[in-house]
Every structure is written in structure tokens, then in C-alpha cells.
């Protein structure tokens, strides 16, 4: 049993536990925080598979940006402790049905794979070294330099726009 396997096993437990925690916690904010932990664990899995870029983007995009957005929405709506409602009565049976189908499908694929004695191949190691990250950065800052810079202007404009819309007019008070 090498150290990598130990890390994997521990993290798997954490990942499963946080996923369950997200599902079953009554408070929406706790759910969101569990999900953040889950995303971070998955990011470490990517690292184990030798995909550093994917791991970093998983953390910045999912665990960082998207979850912050989720938390903001939950807090702004004050939806931390919503009473369970029956607004969509058909939703529950449908969700159970769909998840059963998904579960059967996943199990079948897993078994079929095992029978054909195909092990899950790890991604091409050569494509996932630090070199690929460097190549990507070089492409981003040479061939795609202009779109990159325009995006920064775009974000600036969106920010200015948001401030303009929310800040009260000083001139109008007169």
C-alpha cells in the first residue's frame, strides 16, 4: 500500500462524507460550505492524476468564484433555513426515478468495464506536466493576448456599470 493510495482512500472518505453532508444538512449555508470542501477534495484528486491545471481551475472557478456566488445568493435571499415546502409535488418522485436510472447506468458501466478487464487509464502524463501549463500560459499571452486584455477592460466596464447603478446620484439631490 503506497502513500498515494492512502491519500486517495482518506480523501475519498472525505469527499463522500462532505457530499452527504451537503445533501442532508438543514441549513443552506452549511450545505454550500460542505460543497466547497467537496470541490477542494476533488481538486486534490486531479493533482493525484497528474493534472495540475485542472486542479487549480477547479479550486479557483468552482470552489472560489461559483461557490461565493452561491453563498451570496443564499444570504441575500435569506434562504438559510427555509421550511420544506410542497410547491412542486411531482418533483420528488421524478427526482427519485431519475437518480435510480443514473445509478443503474453507472453500475452497469462500472461492471462492464471490470469484466472487459480494462483498467481506468490515467490521462496522458506528457500532456499534464508543468510544461503544458507553461505552453498554455504562453499561448494565452501571445496568440490570445488581445482577447485576454479586452476581457480585463470588459470586467472594468461591468464593474463601473454596477457602481453607477447602485450608487445614488449626487447631482439629483439638489
Amino acid at each position, binding site marked *: 500500500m503506497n502513500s498515494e493510495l492512502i491519500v486517495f482512500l482518506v480523501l475519498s472518505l472525505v469527499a463522500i462524507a462532505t457530499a452527504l453532508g451537503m445533501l442532508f444538512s438543514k441549513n443552506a449555508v452549511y450545505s454550500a460550505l460542505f460543497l466547497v470542501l467537496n470541490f477542494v477534495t476533488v481538486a486534490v484528486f486531479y493533482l493525484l492524476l497528474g493534472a495540475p491545471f485542472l486542479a487549480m481551475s477547479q479550486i479557483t472557478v468552482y470552489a472560489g468564484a461559483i461557490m461565493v456566488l452561491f453563498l451570496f445568493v443564499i444570504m441575500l435571499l435569506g434562504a438559510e433555513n427555509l421550511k420544506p415546502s410542497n410547491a412542486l409535488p411531482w418533483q420528488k418522485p421524478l427526482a427519485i426515478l431519475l437518480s435510480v436510472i443514473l445509478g443503474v447506468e453507472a453500475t452497469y458501466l462500472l461492471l462492464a468495464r471490470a469484466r472487459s478487464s480494462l483498467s481506468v487509464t490515467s490521462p496522458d502524463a506528457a500532456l499534464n506536466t508543468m510544461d503544458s501549463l507553461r505552453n498554455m500560459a504562453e499561448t494565452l499571452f501571445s496568440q490570445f493576448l*488581445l*482577447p485576454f486584455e*479586452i476581457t480585463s477592460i470588459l470586467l472594468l466596464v461591468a464593474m*463601473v*456599470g454596477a457602481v*453607477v447603478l447602485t450608487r445614488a*446620484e449626487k447631482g*439629483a439631490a*439638489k
Partner: protein
Amino acid sequence: MTTPTYTDFYTLLPYLILTVWACVLLLVDLFIPVGRKGITAFLAALGIAVTLGFSITQIGAESVGFSSMVALDGFSTFANILLLSSGLFGIALAYGYTQRFNMVRGEYYILLLFSVSGMMLMAQANDLIIVFLALELLSIPLYVLSAISRKLTSEESGVKYFLLGAFASGFVVYGTALIFGATGSTNLAAIFAQAAAGVTSGLLLTIGAALLLVGFGFKVAAAPFHMWTPDVYQGAPTSVTAFMAAGAKIAGFVALFRVFATAFPSLAPELTTILWALSAVTMILGNLTAISQTNIKRMLAYSAIAHAGYILMAFVPYGNAKVAPTAIAAGLFYLVAYAVSNFGSWGVVIALEKAEGKGLEIEDYAGLAKKYPALAAAMTVFMLSLIGFPPTLGMVGKFYLFRSALAGGFPGLALIGLVTSLLSAYYYLRVVVNMYMKEGDPEIEREPWLALTTGFTAIATVVVSFVPQFLFMLAYTAVMR
């Protein structure tokens, strides 16, 4: 690793000047006291004027830059000059209007500068990634400007514009992804080469191009993607509407011309039918709905939709190499004609508008001719130009459009254009009838910049119509690179 060269910067220089100017102005504006925001307006106009001067020196220059992401050619320079002029008119109309309606804010002009820079980028884009970014860069300031007056209608219009605009951007992105999937590139020239060499999935490419068409259709307010137009045009501050109606339409059409003429000539057999139908539906729907409007802003909004249909007409024979240059030049010419009449007519609307949305009904124009003959005469000129009645720029523009439709072998479309133009006379002339033949006591605002804009556009509408060949040749040389 390559660093940008002189050519790269030269290709994009008008855009770069304007963007840097806008960013610096954002900081400078902080030090301008609240009561003197006119300085910001002046500085913004100065920035546009400097860029305009530079754009004029670029006439005839051709280059590509930033790994062929952007192109500089006659077409883009023509569009840049037109867009920058629109920006100047937009500032001139806004200067008095914002003071009168208590929405003086330095950011108004800065956002307008950013929007113009996005439109220019759209004209120069040679890559679908840039097209998308430019589309966002021109739209986001417009969403904010629509909602800037903090009145309920203005905010509603801003939100509506934002939601539908975001939806349209989604179409553009999805179309780009499909085109990338079919050809393996987002560069327009590379897409053309790949499409000519034969793609494995032609259907994917066609659907991608059609989705792009939907996205641009939203921006230029072509039916059936025009639903947002009347509400947004009516709710937004009138000075914003004037700029939006001209600028966004010019940018949308310029991008449409470039993307389709550069990348998709091979799809012409499929797309021509779609474009034909779009153009016909837009002309008919815009003109028919405009008839029943009583509010001048809504009427002009439907008229804007109808004109999108006329300009689309220029675009129908784009796959026919013999007719296409003349047709696209006719489209450019009509864009100029429309922009001039558009700014003029919105200028008159601004002159009559009162607080709380008063003074915007067509009946409020009754008696204008007796009290303010010059203004009424100017409005008459704009209305005639929008109908396409001589001697105005609109008439010459329509002549070129119908001629190119006939040359492209679409007499039916030219006929629809002619009939709907006749139909449109009814609602445009109703304004004229109200001004000259009914009694009333309208009040107008006297603002020097407003008067200057209205006067200049009215004179240009008439004078240029006598020497249209010169402007048409400019457009034609711009298209023939």
C-alpha cells in the same frame, strides 16, 4: 513567445486611443466637481474627436494584427469613422438632456466612450472570439446607460435589455462553439478556407452560422428578434435611445457584413433564403406595427425595426460575388443615411420632451410649425428621409438598396420594400400633418448643442442627397479592398 509589434498596435490604434482615454477619464472625472460635469462631456468628446482624426488618417491603410485577431481595412475605417461620429452626436444630444432631467453623471460619457470602443472593435474583429468580446463591450455600457436615470421605466428598460441581450450573447457563443467544432478555428479567414476545402459536418457549420445570425438579429432589432426594441427605446433616456438606435445597429450590421462575407460565402445557398425571409418579415412587421403607435418614441422604435429590414436587404445577395460589393456598399450607405436621420429625429424628440414622460405623444407636435418653423422643417426633412422621399438621403439610400436587390435577382424583396415604404409614409406623415395642420401650443427646450445637432443633420440629409455618388464611392472603395 512573440511580443506585439508596431503593426499590431497600428492596426488597433483607434480602439486603443479611445480605451486608454476612457480609462484615464474615469480617474480624471473623480476630480471634477459635481456641478461641472460638462468638463467630462467636453473631454469625452475631445477623445472621440482625436480618435476620429486618427481614423481619418488611416483611410486606405490595410493590415492585420495580434495574430490576425483584428483587421484594419477600408471597411473597418469607414465603420470606425461612422461610429465615432455617432459617438459625437450621442454626447451632443446627451449634454443638455442629462442636465434637464437631473441625471448629470460623469460616468454617462465614459460608458458611452467604452460602448463606442466596443463598436469599433466589432468593426475590426477578424476572429469570432473578438466578435463576442466586442459585442459584450458595446452592450454592457448600453444596458447601464438605459437604466441610468433611476426612474422605474428606465430601470425596467435596462433590465429588459440586459436579459434579452444576455440571451442573444448566448446564441453568439453557442454559434461560435459549433463553428469551431466544424472547422477547428475561430479565425474568419481560416473558417472560410476550411469551409471551402470541405468540412466533415456541414450541418454543424450551417447551424452555427444561423445561431450567429440570431444573435446579431437581436442586436440590430430584426424581426422576429425585435420584441425588446419598443420597450427599451421607450423606457431608456431619449439621449441614450438615440445613441443606441444608431450605434448598436451600425455595429451589429458591420459585424454581420464582415463575418458572413468573409467566413461563410460557401453557405450562401442556405442562408440567402433565411436572410430573404428575415428581411421581408422585418420590413412588413416593423412598418405595420408602427402605424398604430401614438407615442413618438415607440413609433420611432418600430421604424428602427423596419429599417433593420431594409438594411438586411443589402445583405441577401452576399454570396453572389458580382453583386455583393455593390450591395454591401449600399448597406453601408443606408447605415449612414439612417444614422443621420435617426440622430436628427431623436434630437427633435428630445427638444419637445418634458419631465415625467410628457411631450412624447404625436399629438404634442400639433402647432409646432407655427411656433418653431425651423424645428418643424427639420423634423419634416427627417420624416421624409425615413420614408425615402426626395430630396433626402433616405431616398438615395433606398434607391441603392432596391437596385442591388434587383441586381441580385430578388425583385420580390425590392417590391416588398417599395410597398412597405409607401405604407410607412402614413405614420411618418402623420407627424408632419400634426405639426403643420393642427392647432397646438408646444413648448421646446432651447439648447445650443441640440440645435446644432438637429440643424447639422437636417442640412446634411438634404445636401448630401444631391451629391450621393461621392459618399457611395467612399462606401464602395471601402468594401472593395
